[in-house]
């Protein structure tokens, strides 16, 4: 058979003509890592899948491009999706912002969204970009409270990737949460210098344990290594971003997960109502964008304290002040 000039439709939604049926929402995702990174990229992909299950396959179409760590490649893909009739193109990384600002004006019918940011380009007259921002510090705060309650040795180990972006926000919140709960507790923080050094993350976890930590936490895809070590040493782990209990159910006490479903729903609703962009959305405990999933093994008092923190963050009675490190 000769190669077909126009890709057939069906399972491949992306190539269809721009004029799609009205009641179908078509969403494209650009991800800096993979959909199974059990962290940043997986969290939004999972939410979108859940939303699709809720709305029905015929109402929500999904396409994604993963491992788009190279920005020009991502820019090309963003343009491509926009040109191919996607209603909403989500660039899931702050590095894509400049490209978005450049592309969005060329596709006034299409909505774009990006995170983590508060910039919608409204100041430049751009009206079709949503900016979103998960409050990683809130996730950090609640897990910090939980960790402070869990530790008996009063030492907690934190395995971070690099001290920047969402990871930094998480660390800041975590430290605040711990301090608010028990100022005596010490948090040892270490960074591996990359998002993918699984082996070094594992050794960092080992080091923390040797240095006395009896509760561990951390962020980014590399923490799977650290979780393995926690599991082997029977030390509780507290996850963020995605539900990390899939990696080791008996070890992961809780995961403060980013639940993008509501945010996605909101954007889709706004779009239906004629607002194509220009708004900043957040994932917070207040709007259900961040939730904590607790393991049954987690001690009740600790869970209670964490839940109290959740409530406090939700109603605004707790505000997080990041301290310089």
């Amino acid at each position, binding site marked *: 058979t000769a190669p077909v000039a126009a890709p057939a439709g069906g399972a491949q939604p992306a190539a269809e003509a721009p004029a799609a049926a009205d009641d179908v929402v078509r969403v494209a995702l650009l991800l800096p890592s993979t959909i*199974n990174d059990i962290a940043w990229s997986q969290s939004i992909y999972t939410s979108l899948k859940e939303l699709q299950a809720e709305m029905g396959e015929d109402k929500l179409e999904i396409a994604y491009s993963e491992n788009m760590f190279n920005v020009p490649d991502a820019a090309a893909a963003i343009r491509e999706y926009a040109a191919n009739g996607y209603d909403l193109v989500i660039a899931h990384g702050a590095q894509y912002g400049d490209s978005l600002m450049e592309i969005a004006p060329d596709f006034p019918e299409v909505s774009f969204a990006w995170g983590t940011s508060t910039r919608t380009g409204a100041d430049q007259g751009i009206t079709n970009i949503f900016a979103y921002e998960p409050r990683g510090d809130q996730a950090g705060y609640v897990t910090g409270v939980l960790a402070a309650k869990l530790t008996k040795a009063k030492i907690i180990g934190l395995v971070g990737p690099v001290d920047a972006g969402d990871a930094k926000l998480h660390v800041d919140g975590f430290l605040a949460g711990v301090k608010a709960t028990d100022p005596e507790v010490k948090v040892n*923080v270490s960074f591996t210098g990359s998002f993918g*050094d699984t082996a070094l993350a594992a050794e960092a976890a080992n080091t*923390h344990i*040797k240095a006395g930590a009896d509760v561990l936490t951390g962020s980014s895809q*590399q923490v799977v290594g650290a*979780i*393995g070590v926690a599991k082997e040493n029977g030390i509780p782990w507290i996850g963020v971003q995605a539900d990390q209990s899939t*990696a080791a159910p008996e070890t992961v006490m809780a995961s403060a997960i980013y639940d993008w479903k509501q945010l996605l729903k909101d954007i889709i609703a706004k779009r239906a109502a004629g607002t194509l962009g220009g708004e900043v959305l957040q994932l917070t405990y207040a709007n259900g964008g961040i939730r904590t999933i607790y393991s049954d093994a987690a001690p009740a008092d600790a869970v209670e304290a964490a839940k109290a923190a959740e409530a406090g963050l939700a109603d605004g009675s707790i505000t997080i002040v990041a301290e310089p490190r």
Partner: protein
Amino acid sequence: MDNLLNTATLIGIAHSGVRLATPYLYAAIGEMFGQRSGVLNLGVEGVMLMGAFAAYYGVFLGADPWLGVLAALLIGALMGLLMAVISVTMQAEQGISGIGLSLFGLGLSSLLLKVLVGSPISIQGFPVWQIPGLSQIPIVGPIFFDHDVLVYIAYLLVPISLFVLYRTTFGLKVRAVGQNPEAADSLGVRVNAVRYATVILGSALAGMAGASLSVGLLNIFQENMTNGLGFIAVALVYFGGWRPIGVLLGALLFSTVSAFQLWMQVLGAPIPPDLAVMLPYILTIVALAVGVKQIRQPAALTKPYERGE
């Protein structure tokens, strides 16, 4: 910061160093055999990933970790066969075919993870096995005899490779083929067969290096989890002067400094973490530049062999 120098910390650093060196040892000793026979395999990284996945997936499906290791060895050997066909038989430029192999292993292992497993799920790999008696020795015990079994095997590999290289007819052929393939050929040594053997053996060990991560140290598999480790292993072969002991020292130096910088961070040393992470890389270069005696590389390294007919 002041407790950086107490005994417990030093033991901790040494213990971490010994353990972290494991994957480097497997991969670098394997690579050393290939290079000793004249084949530079830059594909170690990809082979490690495939080995790591194979072992992980075996255990994931419920197999014994040992079966996982076997799977890693087999997949590694298979990747080695591919490398050998391309670089020995087809005489392809070795640096570039290795980069190709790396990409292939990276892609395929990630793909398999995605298709067969989905998101990473931890498994029950080899537990830590404190060697009875030996682990009781003060200082030495906690440093050397408190690891999982794949760590011990990695260190056993050093005397074994010494023996194979210097005391067996195979080792003699390997050394000869890497230095002067023509001379070896003139004595009836099948140069390319020896190279096939070392590349396959080396890759099998690279596969095992992967297994030492996925079912030994980490108990999980993640896309690109080696993160450049394979390239460091190749560099360590150069550092070690193509000798087992040199490779051992290089791996220990590199991993101990890595462990040291982790401890510095954990104990809150006032150094930016990014700069701390640089330490092992810098020290490896410095050690080679000022401390280590330079040894010539195998004369036929990267040179395909073909009889002049």
